[in-house]
């Protein structure tokens, strides 16, 4: 199903080394290191609060790492100048969880937006290119609608069309199947694979849906409470002996660490001031 794992070349597109991040005093990511190879579908998996969305923000260069390194296409985000990050962004596309289509523009204008801002093409050409991508995601004829008039699945597909309109080398999808019924979710997974094969992109998918992850991934990283539990191919992750990974895969609740002292302290702590 996942296909071309062996076909992925050895060149790395994303390198993360010892990334540690904080939100206020709370540590979100703890010494995360991974690399994503060219042409593969790499899935970042984990439950809520595992730090996967935070990791994505760093990969998207929305935050600058303070401790550790993140390199995209060999460019270190910590020391990169604004112009360099701008160039990087033209080579990547992002489909956000809620679509994040600009609500003041029609679907067609949304898909055309990156072209309008970054190219000198005339309007007619841009329209054709946007329609091409809308055809791919099966939304032909919907370009005049406003985002508010679309269903959840259509918004996600339109967001995908916008993400790939510049033919990026690197595509990020944040929770592509969240909030969709199983049939639509499966169709969206298939669409991501189709896009990867057609455009030869590297794809990074953030998800908490196991089925979706196993369907599309070449390799998976499993995050829990900000640390990496395991990285590997679908089979390797399935076979992983780590009890926390198995708990996640089998949808088992984790047995909480029962430290009676800490438990008592949590209950009696005075938070009135």
């Amino acid at each position, binding site marked *: 199903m996942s296909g071309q794992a062996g076909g992925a070349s050895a060149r790395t597109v994303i390198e993360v080394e010892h990334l540690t991040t904080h939100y206020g005093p709370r540590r979100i990511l703890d010494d995360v290191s991974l690399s994503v190879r060219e042409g593969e579908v790499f899935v970042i998996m984990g439950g809520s609060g595992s730090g996967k969305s935070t990791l994505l923000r760093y990969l998207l260069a*929305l935050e600058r790492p303070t401790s550790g390194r993140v390199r995209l296409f060999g460019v270190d985000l910590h020391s990169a100048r604004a112009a360099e990050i701008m160039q990087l*962004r033209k080579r990547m596309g*992002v489909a956000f969880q*809620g679509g994040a*289509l*600009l609500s003041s523009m029609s679907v067609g204008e949304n898909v055309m937006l990156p072209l309008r801002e970054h190219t000198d093409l005339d309007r007619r050409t841009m329209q054709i290119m946007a329609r091409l991508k809308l055809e791919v995601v099966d939304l032909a004829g919907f370009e005049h609608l406003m985002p508010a008039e679309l269903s959840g699945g259509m918004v996600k597909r339109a967001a995908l069309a916008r993400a790939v309109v510049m033919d990026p080398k690197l595509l990020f999808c944040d929770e592509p199947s969240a909030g969709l019924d199983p049939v639509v979710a499966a169709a969206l997974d298939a669409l991501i694979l189709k896009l990867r094969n057609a455009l030869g992109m590297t794809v990074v998918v953030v998800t908490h849906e196991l089925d979706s992850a196993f369907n599309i991934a070449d390799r998976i990283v499993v995050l829990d409470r900000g640390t990496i539990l395991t990285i590997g191919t679908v089979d390797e992750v399935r076979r992983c002996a780590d009890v926390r990974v198995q708990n996640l895969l089998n949808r088992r609740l984790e047995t909480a660490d029962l430290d009676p002292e800490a438990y008592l302290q949590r209950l009696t702590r005075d938070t009135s*001031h």
Partner: protein
Amino acid sequence: MATEIRADADRSLAQGALSRLEQLGRRVAAAVSGLGFGAALFIESAFWLVMGRRRRQPVRVAAVAEEMMQVGVRAIPIVTVLSATIGVMLAIQGIYTLGLFGAESRVTIGIALSITREFAPLITGILVAGRSGSALAARLGTMNISQEIDALRVMGINPVRFLVAPSLLAMLVMLPALTFWSDLIALAGAGVYVSFELGISMAAYADQLIEVVSADDIVHGLSKSVIFAALIALVGVVNGAAVSGGAEGVGRATTRAVVQAITAIVITDMLFVFVMTRTAT
């Protein structure tokens, strides 16, 4: 045992004081960083307006026009109604007050100077803060929580150039324009009442206006409205950008934007008047 309890109590008192101090510190830091953020936004917007075209990332004329429509043109009816009302109100009060000294005929100068120097810019500013400053905060806040701002950034589109600069420019152009319109309407409204009440013709009233109102008075009012425009836009943007916590957060930011903008307008007005009248005399 007793001393232990006493020590515990002392410690929690000290902690309480410390945490209150810490809260105060955080608030002050947040306020200062808000001010700094506003100033940075202003500078960055100005940069994109001037340099955008050369960097091949222009501020879109269409976006500015759309904002001007929203901020300026669509506000004309309400500005007209309020200004006319204020003009008539000032005429009534002026005639009554001066009537106490039997000096009704001198009412024009009072009306003219209060309108051009104070009422028109202030009322228009407050109105636009309520109409457009809040809308700006709500729009940016909604875009923020639906990740539209993030989406712009990852598409390589600078949100300040794309969203803030057009709003700021539209506000800087349209608020003085609306203020000038307000000047005209309020003076006309006052004129209708004065000519009716004191039995002078509109032409005679207009002659009096030309005699007493100098260009300086108009410019004084319009200069203030330019400052108000920047305040309204930046307060709206800063509050919108700081939204967290979903739809409720958007509502809170919207309210805060209006309250802060009006407060900033009134205080700035007082400072401006103080400085200008001091230097004039």
